[in-house]
């Protein structure tokens, strides 16, 4: 029998009933009285250009066009659509060189899709027709798309403060020698018996959340600005919009709509500034901006592509003596996450194995690509693709089994985590490796693959990862919760934590219900209202269960303390003599002496005077629990992924036969949702390894901004999959839970690459590994698989 009533149970997702009938309101579903439609005119034909003429006269003649706003008709305050700038102190932001370099509309087009002006009209169709009539003439500028093009002398400099278009490098003041790590990696490398070294390219992957971005904004009669947005960080959106339009936060309200997937795409803000600027131009009228899919594709941030150099040194017995690496990330046209991702890419690298010494350099370069930003994994999959392949290359030469080596050398409990000084409090990676190897029959398959012949070749691969549960200690980790106890003892939990669909609201319900001794339906979550909810940094860094959950536990403790205090008065005994038994509090020495929590709550609210005694009937006041929780710990999840592939060496086609996902996420709070995160994460990891990349032509225009041209794994492409969760309650997570949101994506990337290596003996240095690349490599290596 489980010690818990709802924790660890597959309770129905709290939003599932509505979602199966299509009832939740996503931003695009909203319609309001007197609503106007906004259409943003974007530069679709150039990746880099200057606007030489902007003429609204023809467009304004169309009946139904209310206003058109150009770059000068809106605030000139600049901003950053990412969120890193809100999560570090000003001092750190300054050291990192963070920029706010975006404007609402621009005369300087830095990437295809940059916004020029905004049309406001009475219908969507009229707005679209008018947008087509806006005359924009451009002077094309030199286009540069990669870090190596960006840093070449003579290349146009995208930002005056950033020479050679280097948007970011690890600052010397925080990371001496602009390098992150420990020991002297260059010296240590000299001790190596075997060195493996190579240059890799990691791809620009798109989140492809199914709901295209949509917004509504309206200024009400009091001059208050309302914005309906599906951002995953409503409080950051609140702060950014208030600052951008120079209004107190009390004059801005963010209404969070149901989020149709995010995966990082909705981290920070996207087109809220344009939409709000249009609403401010037509006070009283709501303005709706619906982004088309193709538009969504080129304006919202993607994963950081980049060039990744790595060098690893080993002793003959496999001892890893040194690791050196340098990642040059492509941040695209704007700063966005230019400092965040190159840092974490190295953090994940340093958090994985016990190298004798490690030195990592992380940089970001501007280019005329659409901006890169947050995408599930945040640098981790990039490192996984490179590190895990290079390790296997070395292990082949050293004749050491990849599973055994990882068992011997992965970091674990007590080791420095991805941020030095923060030690891993729990780790079941070894058990994950053992369980996964057994499930996929590793030894048997490795042996069989050595004997194979024919045109179809099989391979197995393994990769390990860890991630994070929140962003402590690098970034602010803060969630506020209030719990209002209704007069019947049921509870309303108020928090700004958002649910992108992964189920965080269900888990937060479970945590509150368990902590307060209530049933699921006796708890209601109040979210998505910036007037009602206290601060929360937002759903990112796989933090909501871990940090949000602990905040709810803290607020629940506050409620319970108040209940006990009052029970002690009602039952005329000391708090020490009291115990909770579900919804009742009783005296330990006399269980008959008891009171229900509902009764305490009722008496607190309906606090009448007893006419006989002249005393109030119980302790007065409605009970509110409160927590302003700053995470004190970070307990990363660990995982090992095993993959078997079969490659047709005549077509280059890679078929995934099986994927075994083993993870240590602490205690599993909801097994089915955790499995859903793993399987869904794997679908995206598979895409990064094998099929997904945004391609550009030589003028910097995107070639595949549609679901037909951008290849994702579909329902019948997915491999047979098995998820094994190795449970070991973490000492710090709520009920022992660690994070799960991002974990599932990362390890499949390296595991697939390693399975391909096992099958063909070839490593692919550029992701994704497409059939064309496979065929080319087979040819170049002069291999014959007949």
């Amino acid at each position, binding site marked *: 029998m489980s010690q818990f009533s709802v924790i660890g149970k597959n309770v129905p997702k709290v939003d599932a*009933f509505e979602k199966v009938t299509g009832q939740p309101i996503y931003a695009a579903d909203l319609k309001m009285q007197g609503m106007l439609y906004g259409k943003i005119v974007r530069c679709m034909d150039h990746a880099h250009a200057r606007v030489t003429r902007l003429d609204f006269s023809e467009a304004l003649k169309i009946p139904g066009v209310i206003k058109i706003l150009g770059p000068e008709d809106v605030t000139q305050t600049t901003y950053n659509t990412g969120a890193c700038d809100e999560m570090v102190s000003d001092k750190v932001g300054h050291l990192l060189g963070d920029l706010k370099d975006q404007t609402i509309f621009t005369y300087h087009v830095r990437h295809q899709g940059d916004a020029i002006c905004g049309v406001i009209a009475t219908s969507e169709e009229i707005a679209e027709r008018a947008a087509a009539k806006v005359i924009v003439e451009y002077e094309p500028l030199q286009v540069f798309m990669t870090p190596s093009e960006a840093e070449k002398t003579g290349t146009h400099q995208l930002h005056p403060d950033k020479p050679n278009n280097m948007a970011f490098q690890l600052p010397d003041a925080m990371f001496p020698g602009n390098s992150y790590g420990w020991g002297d990696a260059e010296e240590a490398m000299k001790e190596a018996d075997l060195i493996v070294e190579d240059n890799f390219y990691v791809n620009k992957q798109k989140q492809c959340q*199914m709901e295209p971005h949509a917004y509504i904004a309206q200024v009400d009669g009091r001059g208050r600005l309302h914005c309906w947005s599906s951002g995953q960080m409503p409080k950051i959106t609140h702060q950014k919009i208030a600052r951008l339009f120079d209004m107190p936060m009390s004059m801005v309200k963010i209404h969070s709509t149901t989020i149709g997937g995010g995966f990082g795409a909705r981290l920070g803000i996207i087109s809220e500034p344009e939409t709000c600027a249009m609403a401010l131009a037509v006070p009283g009228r709501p303005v709706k901006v619906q982004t088309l899919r193709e538009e969504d594709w080129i304006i919202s941030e993607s994963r950081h592509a980049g060039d990744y150099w790595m060098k690893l040194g080993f002793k003959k017995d496999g001892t890893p003596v040194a690791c050196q690496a340098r990642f040059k990330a492509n941040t695209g046209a704007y700063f966005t996450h230019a400092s965040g991702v190159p840092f974490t890419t190295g953090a994940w690298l340093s958090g994985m194995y016990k190298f004798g010494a490690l030195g990592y350099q992380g940089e970001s370069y501007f280019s005329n690509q659409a901006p890169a930003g947050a995408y599930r994994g945040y640098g981790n999959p990039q490192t996984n693709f490179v590190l895990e392949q290079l390790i296997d290359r070395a292990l082949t030469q050293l004749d050491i089994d990849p599973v055994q080596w990882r068992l011997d050398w992965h970091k674990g409990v007590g080791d420095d985590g991805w941020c030095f000084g923060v030690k891993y409090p729990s780790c079941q990676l070894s058990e994950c490796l053992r369980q996964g190897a057994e499930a996929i029959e590793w030894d048997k398959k490795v042996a069989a693959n050595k004997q194979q012949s024919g045109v179809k070749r099989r391979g197995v691969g393994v990769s390990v990862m860890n991630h994070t549960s929140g962003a402590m200690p690098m970034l602010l980790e803060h969630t506020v919760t209030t719990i209002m106890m209704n007069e019947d003892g049921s509870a309303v939990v108020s928090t700004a934590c958002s649910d992108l669909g992964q189920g965080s609201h269900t888990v937060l319900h479970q945590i509150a219900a368990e902590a307060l001794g209530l049933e699921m339906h006796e708890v209601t979550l109040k979210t998505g209202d910036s007037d009602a909810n206290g601060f929360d940094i937002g759903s990112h860094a796989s933090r909501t269960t871990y940090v949000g959950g602990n905040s709810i536990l803290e607020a629940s403790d506050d409620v319970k303390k108040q209940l006990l205090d009052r029970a002690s008065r009602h039952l005329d005994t000391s708090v020490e003599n009291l115990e909770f038994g579900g919804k009742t509090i009783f005296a330990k020495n006399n269980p008959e002496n008891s009171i229900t929590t509902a009764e305490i709550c009722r008496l607190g609210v309906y606090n009448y005077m007893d006419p006989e005694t002249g005393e109030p009937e119980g302790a007065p006041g409605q009970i509110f629990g409160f927590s302003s929780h700053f995470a004190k710990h970070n307990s990363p999840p660990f995982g090992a992924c095993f993959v078997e592939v079969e490659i047709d060496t005549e077509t280059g086609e890679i078929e995934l036969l099986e994927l075994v996902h083993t993870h240590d996420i602490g205690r599993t709070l909801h097994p089915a949702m955790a499995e859903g995160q793993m399987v869904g994460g794997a679908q995206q990891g598979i895409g990064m390894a094998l099929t997904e990349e945004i391609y550009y032509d030589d003028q910097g225009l995107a070639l595949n901004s549609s679901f037909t041209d951008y290849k994702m794994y579909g329902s019948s492409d997915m491999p047979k999959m098995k998820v094994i*969760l190795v449970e070991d309650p973490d000492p710090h997570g709520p009920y022992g839970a660690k994070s799960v949101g991002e974990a599932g994506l990362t390890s499949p990337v390296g595991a697939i690459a390693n399975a391909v290596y096992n099958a063909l003996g070839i490593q692919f240095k550029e992701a994704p590994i497409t059939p064309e690349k496979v065929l080319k490599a087979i040819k170049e290596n002069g291999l014959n698989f007949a």
Partner: protein
Amino acid sequence: MKERMIELTVNGINLNISVPVHQTLLDTLREQLGFTDTKYGCGTGECGACTVIIDGEDSLCSCMALASTLNGRSITTAAGLAEQGLNAVQQAFIDQTAVQCGYCTPGMVVKSTSLLRKNPNPTEEEIRKELEGNICRCTGYDSIVKAVQQAAQSFPEENTQWDNAVELKTGAHS
């Protein structure tokens, strides 16, 4: 703008409406009639978020059909499937935790219902094939396939090719 009068039955309600001749069924449903349970995902027939049932059995991407050509036809959306309480597919989606962000869900539910109406006992392969036009970026499809199998009351199937199950194991301490 040219308009045309059509008779359209939506979720059992008979409507006589005038629609612009070039308006997609998706826009008629969402913008004109307020059936926002049918979703816009791409507008180009590539994602399945806008799927509806036409004349009780077949499914259709409503973003690819002009409402003006559907005179006399009957349309069912996800909400329409739940008129007498959730249908078996909808219940199974809840039971199997096959719903994450929910944006693909109405289309998925409609498509799966259409499949089961035509083929009450699909194999796992047939389910996966049928759902190829419906993109879900959240679930990785396994839970959705299981839900359709549950709805077909043939779960688990003999064909165990996709015998996916989450296993909880206890951690080891040395």
